[in-house]
């Protein structure tokens, strides 16, 4: 029960087979009260309820700074504290450079990077007032590899940006007792893959991964738990590859 009494916000957490949900569930198992934010209001409420009655699901489009501030205030009014923020909201897109549009670029950049920027800025004043907090940003192996499987150049760029944002926040916020780290998942078997890659395709990808399988959401959720717990008290500004060795092969 590493997170007993703590309050954690997980953005992009409504999809029941996703990283955000698995992370929220893991945190709840660790004793935390979780707040699931999602652009899909009904799904956020339903998912939070599925984890337990003490958890909260709220609608939030992280691309909108004003909405982020209102939502964070709502969390503080309900629970009185925020200890953890997981910036997981994001979309992937495999369009190649010349097949991408301005709208594609805006969608991917805003959901991932602007979303993390907005939500972090919304929670930091509170975390600063308590001189404690842990932020995790969801990057991707695509940032280092340049995408190529399910993410186009704009996706890879967005993930690179969010990882560097975590480092900069780590540097700036360390004196306030706030840690910020990123996780770089490899290929995770979630709903994001549905319709984009079939079982044969997944097997081909798995064959090229040293550990021989795709990630499951629990792999990422476990890494999030480590990075927000006291076990990582001296870790900040790190990018933790959870990719089965894909990042080096």
């Amino acid at each position, binding site marked *: 029960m590493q997170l007993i009494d703590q309050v954690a916000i997980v953005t992009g957490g409504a999809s029941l087979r996703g990283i955000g949900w698995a992370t929220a569930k893991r945190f709840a198992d660790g004793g935390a009260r979780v707040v699931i934010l999602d652009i899909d209001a009904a799904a956020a409420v339903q998912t939070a309820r599925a984890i337990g009655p003490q958890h909260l699901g709220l609608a939030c489009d992280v691309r909108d700074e004003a909405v982020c501030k209102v939502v964070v205030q709502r969390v503080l009014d309900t629970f009185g504290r925020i200890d953890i923020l997981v910036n997981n909201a994001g979309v992937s897109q495999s369009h190649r450079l010349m097949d991408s549009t301005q709208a594609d670029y805006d969608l991917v950049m805003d959901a991932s990077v602007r979303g993390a920027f907005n939500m972090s800025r919304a929670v930091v004043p509170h975390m600063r007032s308590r001189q404690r907090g842990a932020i995790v940003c969801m990057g991707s192996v695509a940032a280092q590899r340049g995408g190529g499987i399910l993410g186009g150049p704009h996706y890879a760029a967005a993930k690179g940006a969010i990882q560097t944002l*975590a*480092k*900069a926040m*780590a*540097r*700036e916020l*360390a*004196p306030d007792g706030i840690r910020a780290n990123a996780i770089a998942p*490899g290929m995770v078997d979630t709903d994001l893959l549905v319709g984009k890659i079939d079982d044969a395709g997944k097997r081909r990808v798995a064959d090229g991964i*040293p*550990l*021989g*399988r795709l*990630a*499951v959401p629990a*792999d990422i959720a*476990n*890494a999030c*738990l*480590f990075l927000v717990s*006291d*076990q*990582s*008290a*001296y*870790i*900040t*500004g*790190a990018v*933790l*590859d*959870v*990719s*089965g*060795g894909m*990042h*080096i*092969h």
Partner: protein
Amino acid sequence: MGIGAEVCERLAAAGHQVLVADLDIVAAEATALRLRESGGHAIDRAFAIPLDVGRPESIAQAFDHVDRTFGRCDILVNCAGIAKVFPFLDFPLDNFLETMNVNVTGTLLCAQAAARLMVRRRWGRIVNIASVAGLRAVGSGRTAYGTSKGAVIALTRQMAVELAEHGITANAVAPGPVDTPMTRALHTVQFREAYAKAIPMNRYGSTAEIASAVLYLVSEDASYISGVALPVDGGFLASGARGL
């Protein structure tokens, strides 16, 4: 207590049988005794093994003993290392070679020997204690140390790729400055002050904080993590030159 001893304690507390291997067999015996006593005098909780990672024969002998006596090795933490600083222009060749021998070749040979045992059970965890000095030139004088730790990080990737099919993960931990007997001997007061200021968290790390990262990497929770160099450095690598 150094990083290695702290790791031994945490592994024992997690329920593993711990083999404390060190050049200094007296110190290793003392650590093993302490572990047995703190574990309710469980007599097989911990044992000491003499090991000079700078000599291939010593490594071969140690792992032969492990095989014959315990029949298995599930986790290896390569923590043995040496560090001496000299200006680059005068860096003694013999110290450079010895540092590479102990820090890199020692890691290689221990990992090979341990992995041969891990392969039998198709499960294993290797954690190599590297350093932020392997990724950045920390201060001056670390020609041998920094280069050796960079090599350990690269070696870890090679291990990870080739051992993955056997169910073995290999990862490196890159500590920033840690308060240990080694740094108390190596770092001058001025250096400690300057280094702590260069860290966003403004302090050295503790052996407990390094051990926590090792324990995570050897746990089932980290079964999809391999070939990484995890910095445990208070934000040092993420930061640039402080005060600018």
